[in-house]
């Protein structure tokens, strides 16, 4: 298949109502064969594991590429120069290496985002007054989240929608103005942003002793969690604060689970209970696996999440994340990072070694 054929098939697939596993399998294996052919590091990775498209019988047989690979390698089927857009991770990890995803054009990414966003965040209306708590796409051209939120604004925001985060941070006065207006007019309002973007907002509201009672139909959106940020809040506390501060029931505080290494996102149906059940659309499928054997863990056991995202066709569609999870009815629960821990014995573990070696080097 050519790139254009794949894009066409994907767009059709996304637009369809649903898909049986066999249809998903067929397209997943076609895309795998395409990637195997054009993506040299992926081919090497698969051959190292004795897997070719020929011997993959379902999407579950496609080797899952560890998410770290995106930092070390260029995993692109199209030439780098031909990419319309490159999304990069935020580079907070060791060595500052940033994971890259090259997109030859954004048609599939955009279709994936808008189709599913509509289903999960806007099931009841076409447009809503929106406030965005994240820098603009122009300011962060390599941020997938910036692009995501720009799409949300463009396709689902009314004319009275704004990006409220400028170079100097959140424009509190402007934002509070919009929130008050929503209260007075009774027109629903949606506030979307990175989870950690809400922290200074909630702090400022506390400082000013300000709360809002947004009208019914209003909703909140957060994504990304608090890892590596200045403050650590539990999910439960966060949604309580959000709900209390804005008068939006926790059922309408929606969390999105996504990453630069995918072109599709997962949502929950609100956060009345934490952790909430996350699920995705019919063009992405997930497994919970034992990271050592690559096999699915028994249903209900904790393992590491692996996603097969058909929309991520130019890179690799099957990713092994670093997130622990467990399969439940209707989706999965995210349970935090599946990192290594300190050794049980007196043998040094990698994390301790790196930390100490870093100290030694800089000390």
């Amino acid at each position: 298949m050519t790139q254009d054929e794949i894009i066409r098939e994907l767009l059709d697939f996304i637009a369809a109502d649903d898909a049986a596993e066999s249809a998903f399998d067929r397209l997943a294996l076609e895309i795998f064969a395409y990637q195997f052919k054009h993506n040299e590091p992926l081919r090497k990775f698969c051959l190292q594991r004795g897997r070719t498209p020929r011997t993959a019988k379902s999407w579950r047989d496609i080797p899952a590429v560890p998410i770290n690979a995106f930092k070390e390698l260029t995993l692109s089927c199209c030439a780098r120069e031909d990419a319309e857009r490159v999304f990069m991770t935020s580079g907070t990890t060791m060595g500052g290496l940033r994971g890259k995803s090259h997109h030859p054009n954004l048609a599939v990414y955009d279709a994936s985002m808008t189709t599913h966003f509509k289903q999960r965040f806007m099931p009841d209306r076409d447009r809503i007054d929106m406030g965005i708590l994240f820098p603009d796409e122009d300011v962060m051209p390599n941020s997938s989240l910036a692009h995501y939120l720009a799409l949300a604004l463009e396709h689902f925001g009314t004319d009275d929608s704004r990006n409220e985060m400028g170079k100097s941070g959140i424009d509190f006065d402007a934002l509070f103005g919009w929130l008050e207006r929503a209260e007075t007019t009774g027109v629903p309002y949606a506030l979307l942003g990175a989870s950690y973007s809400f922290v200074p907002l909630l702090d400022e509201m506390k400082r000013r002793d300000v709360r809002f009672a947004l009208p019914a139909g209003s909703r909140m959106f957060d994504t990304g969690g608090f890892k590596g940020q200045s403050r650590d809040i539990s999910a439960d506390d966060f949604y309580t604060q959000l709900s209390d501060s804005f008068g939006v029931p926790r059922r309408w505080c929606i969390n999105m689970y996504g990453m630069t290494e995918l072109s599709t996102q997962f949502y929950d149906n609100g956060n009345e209970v934490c952790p909430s059940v996350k699920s995705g659309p019919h063009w992405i499928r997930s497994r919970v696996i034992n990271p050592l054997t690559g096999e699915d863990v028994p249903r209900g056991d904790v393992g590491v999440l692996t996603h097969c995202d058909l929309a991520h066709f130019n890179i690799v569609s099957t990713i092994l994340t670093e997130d622990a999870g467990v399969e439940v009815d209707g989706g999965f629960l995210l349970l935090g990072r599946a990192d290594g821990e300190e050794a049980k014995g007196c043998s040094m573990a990698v994390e301790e070694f790196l930390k100490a070696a870093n100290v030694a080097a800089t000390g």
Partner: protein
Amino acid sequence: MDFRDKVVLITGASRGIGAAIAKAFAAEGASVAVNYLRNVDAADDVVSECRKTGGDASAFQADVTGANDVDVLIDSVLETFGKIDILVNNAFSPYAFDPENRKMFCDLDWADYQSQIDGALRSTHGMCKAVLPAMRGQAQGTIINMATDLVARPSVPYHDYTTAKAALIGFSRNLAAELGPIGIRVNCVAPGIVYPTDGTRDTKEDVKDMIISQTPLKRLARPEDVAGPVLFLASPWSGFMTGQVLYVDGGLVMT
């Protein structure tokens, strides 16, 4: 026995015992590389049979007595299937099993012996050597060589054929001794007369009857009878067996 996700390469698999082995592996989910020398139609038939029974297969032409062909064969199989878990050395130089008109010892030249040695042993040597890097890369693998019960009991002295197979058994055992410590097992299957195959299609009834009368299980082997023991030796069920010769002849030979 589950051979899903396993890749099997069988030499001389377009007909007879080789074809039966190929189909048996495919029925258990294996991906089978069907090597053939000339008979492309027969090979393609085997391939479709394999796919029908739930496995996967492709045909690969190669003359396994030639070193270059062997390397190309291995490379093609690796490119298609990604790995080789099991190698079955089944090919041998054509032989007419004719008790009445066989070449007796004084009729035979060394060239006759050499031809059989080239067919059975040299091809096996070349295939083993070529496949080893791939198997070493997995720290495991299984090689099964087709011998014959005539080595233990020459009911009919087919000198050249059986001598070559005797050497093949010695070759297999030495290979087993050396490769055991790196996790690669080498075993032989020794059938008696297998009927019907190209070599035995014309065997006379009284010859068959004589053998049957001395066989505890009172019949001759069919190609499918040989497949089971091959699959056994390729499976983890025989994981602690190497250097062995399994006699599959209804009990004609017990050793």
